[in-house]
């Protein structure tokens, strides 16, 4: 079983829809959870991060973590065509080499249709 599982999609929704993106993980050592957004032909950029179980909201975006189920979600309300991108979940653990590493999901490609 891979450490981080993420459905690659593609996911296509109409403008204004609520989008739900999800990842599951198996490693209990993961402490911090992040969502990166990657536009076509660009590098990923951090969208949201959270630590504790529960919800964290930022504008139209809500990140949700359920540590007991090892499940994280990103919700996008009132989705816009500009949200069309690949969304990668990432989880942080201590690497043992004096540093931290991120383990990424494979990414879900989202298209929001006007």
């Amino acid at each position, binding site marked *: 079983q891979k450490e981080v599982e*993420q459905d*690659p999609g593609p996911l296509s929704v109409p403008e204004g829809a609520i989008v739900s993106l999800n990842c599951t993980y198996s490693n209990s050592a993961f402490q*911090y959870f*992040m969502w990166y957004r990657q536009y076509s*032909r*660009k*590098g*990923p*950029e*951090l969208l949201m*991060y959270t630590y504790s179980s529960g919800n964290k909201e930022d504008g139209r975006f809500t990140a949700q973590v359920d540590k007991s189920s090892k499940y994280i979600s990103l919700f996008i309300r009132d989705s816009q065509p500009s949200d069309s991108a690949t969304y*990668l979940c990432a989880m*942080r653990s201590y*690497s043992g*080499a*004096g*540093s*931290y*590493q*991120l383990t*990424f*999901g*494979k*990414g879900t490609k989202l298209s929001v249709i006007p």
Partner: protein
Amino acid sequence: DVKVTQSSRYLVKRTGEKVFLECVQDMDHENMFWYRQDPGLGLRLIYFSYDVKMKEKGDIPEGYSVSREKKERFSLILESASTNQTSMYLCASSYLLGGWNEQFFGPGTRLTVL
């Protein structure tokens, strides 16, 4: 504004050639990372470095080496390029400790090996 730059956006090389990919960051970050990104496989860590002249193997180091002679610069070397190294290569950097260790990514180098 954090900036991670990569020497080339697109590169075409022949099998057996030695290839250098360079990455420079301007935020005085201790950590630097090299990933490759392939459809269906997501982001995979090749090597990372948490200090000058220090390097650690990631998940897929075979066929690659790295060099970090200065804090701001991290080079990925393909000693003898092969067609299965055709990929998008992404460099990232982050602080060593504290905060979320957010990784800042460069724009990527799309390498084609013929």
